[in-house]
Structure formats: structure tokens, C-alpha cells
């Protein structure tokens, strides 16, 4: 199992701050799944695994924490 953390508009659209998925799974599949769950603009989301940015081909394993990261707007 992996934990997927949600923030900002993603958390609002999913009405949750986290959910779980079965591993192993690629970020590309997580992205597709987010679209299926009704998240807008999933093709533009970024992802971090264990607090590091990773790209679509990355394989997430059991115990990893994935964060779905909309375009940041700090500062």
C-alpha cells in the first residue's frame, strides 16, 4: 500500500487530504487515476515520492508516500 497526499485544489476536488493505492504503481498511472477521480488538470500535476520530485515513469513501491503537487504559488 502507498499513501497519496493531496493539497490545495486537489484536496478540495477529492474532498480528502489522502487516500491509499496498491503498489507497485507508476506515477503515470496515479495521474490517470486522478483524472478518473475527477481532478481537473491532472496532466499538469507534479508528484513527489518521499518528498522528492519524480516523473511519470517512476515506480512507487509499498510504504512510499506520494504527494500530488499542483503548481506551487508560495512567496
Amino acid at each position: 500500500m502507498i499513501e497519496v497526499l493531496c493539497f490545495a485544489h486537489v484536496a478540495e476536488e477529492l474532498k480528502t487530504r489522502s487516500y491509499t493505492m496498491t503498489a507497485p504503481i507508476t506515477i503515470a498511472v496515479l495521474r490517470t487515476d486522478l483524472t478518473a477521480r475527477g481532478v481537473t488538470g491532472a496532466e499538469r500535476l507534479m508528484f513527489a515520492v518521499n518528498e522528492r520530485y519524480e516523473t511519470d515513469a517512476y515506480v512507487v513501491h509499498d510504504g512510499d508516500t506520494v504527494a500530488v503537487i499542483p503548481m506551487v504559488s508560495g512567496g
Partner: protein
Amino acid sequence: MNWYQVNEHPLDPMALYEGVRHRNVGAVVLFIGTVREMTGEKQTELLEYEAYVPMAEKMLQQIADEITMRWPGTLTAVHHRIGRLDIMEEAVVIATSSAHRADAYEANRYAIERIKEIVPIWKREHWTDGTEWMGDQKEQRPGRPKGVMT
């Protein structure tokens, strides 16, 4: 002082200033981002910041490390506030120090630009006519954010 901090406490620019000073510093640059009321015709009532805190603090540390590589001897401290902020409150303070002013200025500017690229913090504008999460705009491309060092 924590050098890289993301939390709900009001910011103290002088704490960061004191943190980056030492006997061989000749120049300190502080950037303070504050909540502005008007953006064109739109009026902000308050801002709300949310963060993925542990990763955000780690990314601030990474930005400071990038600065040390590019401008040796330059120190960087960054505090970012989250939660609800009123007009004129401080959202971010960046302090850079170096022997010479060019490094302190350039490193400081670099830090804010990198924060806006890679630090997982999100801003929601509470306009007088509604709310909006900022940043999720068409410029965004999938995958690694622009300029992430690997």
C-alpha cells in the same frame, strides 16, 4: 533560529537578519513578501497559504545549498508563513548575507524565484468576489518543475 521554517507563526524579519550576520559579512539583503490589497481591479480580503510542510522545509534547505554552490560563502535563511494572513502581514522573509553586495542581492533573488518553482506551498486568494487557488495555471507543464537540480 531554524533557518528553513514553514509554519503558522507570524514572521520576524530581524530574527533572520541576526541569524545570517557574522564578522565577515559586508552585505545583508532581506526580502519580505507581504499581503497586498489590490491586484489590478481585484481586491484581496485575505490570503490563505497551505504547505506540504516537511517537503517545503527540505526544499528551502535545498535552495540554500544551491546558493552556497553558486555563491560560495553566502548564507540563506527563509521563513514562510502558512494559514490565513491579512493585508500587510508577512508571508515570506528571505535573508541572504555575504562579504560583498552583488552575491547577497543575486542569491536573494534566486531564492524567491526558486521558491516559486519548487517549494510545495499554495496560496488561495480570498477576493472580495470569491476565492481562487493560485498557481494552477496554463504555464504549468507535467513532470519535474523547471530548473529542478537532480
